[in-house]
């Protein structure tokens, strides 16, 4: 089974989400998209209410773009230190049912080979190392295809986190912890992002036939008419 690998660097998250949505809706191939960082942006899930989730005045004053993505999940502030990894797959290539939990478990299994750390695991809907969150997940499941994207915190700016308000609904394991007690930076734990990316490619090579694609070759997908739910707010 083939997975097409698209490796991007500092590709704006808004453009990435448009591309992912197009590849989900208009393409039939299987994809792994890696993006090493983006312009600073705040990304909400499709049903998020910005007034409840974001310090809107401050974000507007500082010119931080607000994006509503096509998938569900929580709100994140992303920047050049976020590592984005997305899988878009035909349901038929996997032997598990295409429901949220099995999809999450498949990713957990894959990422165990990437992080190579016994303390890495899935907790509720998040990836954690030890007690702290290192990656957030969101999904979109359609009839014959699913998408699962993860934002890993290679590093983060404490001050930037204050653009985000404490959401009404938080994972149980968070236990009202502030960001600095809840989030885990990967940078002090690994030598480089490249180490993780190399591990990911090895893990994928062990499971699939991997074919590298170039951005220019997939941008044509964006030109095809499609429903587009990702939007700037």
């Amino acid at each position, binding site marked *: 089974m083939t997975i097409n690998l698209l490796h991007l660097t500092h590709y704006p998250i808004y453009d990435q989400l448009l591309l992912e949505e197009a590849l989900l809706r208009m393409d039939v191939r299987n994809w792994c998209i890696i993006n090493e960082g983006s312009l600073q942006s705040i990304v909400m899930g499709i049903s998020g209410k910005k007034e409840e989730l974001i310090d809107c005045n401050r974000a507007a004053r500082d010119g931080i773009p607000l994006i509503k993505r096509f998938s569900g999940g929580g709100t994140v502030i992303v920047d050049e230190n976020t590592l984005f990894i997305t899988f878009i797959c035909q349901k038929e290539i996997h032997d598990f049912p295409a429901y949220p939990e099995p999809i999450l478990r498949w990713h957990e299994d894959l990422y165990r080979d990437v992080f190579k750390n*016994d*303390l890495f*695991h899935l*907790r509720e809907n998040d990836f954690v*190392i*030890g*007690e*702290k969150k290192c990656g957030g997940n969101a999904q979109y499941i359609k009839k014959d295809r699913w998408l699962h994207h993860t934002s890993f915190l290679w590093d983060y700016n404490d001050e930037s986190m204050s653009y985000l308000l404490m959401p009404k609904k938080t994972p149980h*394991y968070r236990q009202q*912890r502030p960001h600095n*007690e809840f989030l*885990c*930076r990967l940078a*002090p*734990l690994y030598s480089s992002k490249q180490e993780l990316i190399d591990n990911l490619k090895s893990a994928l090579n062990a499971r699939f036939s991997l074919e590298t694609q170039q951005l220019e070759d997939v941008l044509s997908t964006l030109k095809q008419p499609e429903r587009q739910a990702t939007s700037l707010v």
Partner: protein
Amino acid sequence: MTEEVVKKISQSRTHHLPLAVILIEIDQFEEMKQIFTSDTLQEILEAVDSLIKTHIRKQDFLLPQGDARFLLILPRTSQRAAVAITEIIRAEVVSHSFALQLVPLTITLSMGLTAFDTDPARSIYDEFEGYLGKVERALTKAKEKGNTLIALKKKER
């Protein structure tokens, strides 16, 4: 340096008794800070402190130094005996099952060790500073060689 430590070193000096000093550091504590909450880190420190204390005598001193380090002072202890104690402590900590949420955690220690025949000709403070410098260098050596090691600073006069 606490009064009790001064007293013990003085006694060793007066009676020309050996004294061992061990600097213990929890390996990879900086990484642990990234992945565990402050409460958990405190629990780990307290558990290690408690585990070490189960293997030392009443006359020994365990002094937390911050940054996941502990200074262990063993009066009337030769280098050979001190090495045996460090091996026991290290084995105890490695085999201990730390009761953290969901995940099992194995903790290892690195140690720098030195043992002396105390020298009444030197000031007690100079002598103690000398011990600290030597165990610090021994610990650095242990960590350079790889964690979970015990490095010795040879007995000197």
